[in-house]
């Protein structure tokens, strides 16, 4: 069954398997496009597995090819549709674990978090990478806060709840939150 065509991949569901294939982008020259798609596919499979080893729910990987990954189907609800302060807090805890483990998700949005059987699964690791710097963690959190702000009403409450959870699992949480504020100010005139 055809599930979605996201921004970069076609996602199909065949019974309890998800097949995610990164499709060609004609606006990019082929050498660059092939390189990006191959790198992201490989990184995604590797980091989904490493993240699970940190105790964070992610789909099990069954197979990987050039531009294609086969993985476990997580039959749940995207956090986008059900987010509330309690779930935001737990997302904060899991993100705290992720960052303590040195992994950056790279595309933390409420579409890429799935609630199933009371557990929050992290999916879509196409932009994930290993990095232990406060800067990278700050950008990761900034991206999530941006989806809170751009798509959810109560974003202040969600942000505070996230922070509560994040603090519990990550000792440098304060530094990261301070950096998030700096990042918001950047990219503009000094």
């Amino acid at each position, binding site marked *: 069954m055809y599930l979605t065509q996201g*921004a970069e991949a076609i996602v199909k569901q065949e019974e309890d398997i998800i097949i995610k294939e990164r499709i060609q982008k004609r*606006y990019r020259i082929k050498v*660059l496009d092939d390189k990006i798609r191959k790198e992201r596919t490989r990184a995604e499979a590797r980091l989904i597995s490493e993240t699970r080893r940190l105790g964070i729910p992610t789909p099990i990987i069954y197979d990987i090819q050039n531009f294609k990954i086969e993985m476990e189907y997580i039959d749940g609800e995207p956090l986008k549709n059900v987010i509330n302060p309690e779930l935001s807090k737990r997302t904060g805890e899991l993100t705290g674990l992720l960052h303590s483990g040195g992994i950056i998700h790279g595309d933390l949005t409420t*579409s890429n978090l799935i609630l199933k059987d009371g557990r929050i699964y992290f999916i879509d690791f196409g932009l994930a990478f290993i990095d232990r710097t406060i800067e990278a963690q700050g950008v*990761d959190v900034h*991206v999530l806060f*941006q989806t809170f702000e751009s798509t959810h009403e109560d974003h202040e409450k969600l942000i505070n709840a996230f922070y509560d959870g994040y603090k519990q699992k990550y000792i440098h949480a304060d530094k990261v939150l301070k950096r998030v504020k700096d990042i918001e100010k*950047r*990219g*503009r005139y000094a």
Partner: protein
Amino acid sequence: MKTRILGIEGTAWNLSAAVVDEDDVISEVTETYQPDTGGIHPREASQHHAKYASTVIQKLLENIKSKGIDPKTLDAVAFSQGPGLGPCLRTVATASRMLSLTLDIPIIGVNHCIAHIEVGKWKTPAKDPVVLYVSGANSQVLAYRKGKYRVFGETLDVGIGNALDKFARSAGLNHPGGPRIEKHAKNFEKYVPLPYVVKGMDFSFSGLTTAAKDALENETMEDVCYSFQETAFAMMVEVTERALAHTGKNEVLLAGGVGANMRLREMLDIMCNDRGASFYVPEKRFMGDNGAMIAYLGLLMYRSGSITGLKDSHVDPNFRPDSVEVTWI
């Protein structure tokens, strides 16, 4: 009765004043600051604006008089309140306050980024687009949602125009570098790999700029210019596509000075075609900084009752587009 607004732009290199009504630009007068060497010096640019402000405004008022419009019948004066270079903003704000007092009409401070967007919607069929706004200092992907223009993604360091200009300078090309890089890129032979950095919905250009500078030691100018464009533009087109997917909108509008680049337009056009979205680019005169866009956003604000007033007319060099309550949509 039509609304007529006088608008003044002067956030950076271009001092430009215009009068518009609902339908069109009635007159526009521009004085461009051209640095002799290197990039823009904020103080020099503001001295330039101070020197020409009264001439530009006088000329504009003469022009409208000759079209039978009495300056006293203008409805308001609008100016770029930010974002921009502090000294330039203050110069333009001062001139605008004086004009507001002399003509005895209200003053409206407008957000420069949103002015780029609204002029594009005015001059193209776009209605509710995802906007890629690319200029010297700014690079953002924005879209309207519930009372505000939300920033879906943006540069984490420098704007694409500044990145292009900086690389051009190190390659010995004159300012502004963007158009010169575009020219050299046409004669490429091969792609030189450069860092492609997209983090979620955001992107960054400083690593790319440094790598491109280094690449010049072993590669030709043409190849590096080409590779710079291909890499940097693809990053922004990717984020624009994500914003389309995320918001469910089906129009893209290109805004800002870097939007003059034909390769960037081509890439956006291909992306939109492949997704079944429409792609819009306004005429070139409305893409770089211009007075008409400030006047036009002033007009939208005036008609929806958003009058700034003298006491709130202080400038804001970091004025965020997503901090503006949109009263006119």
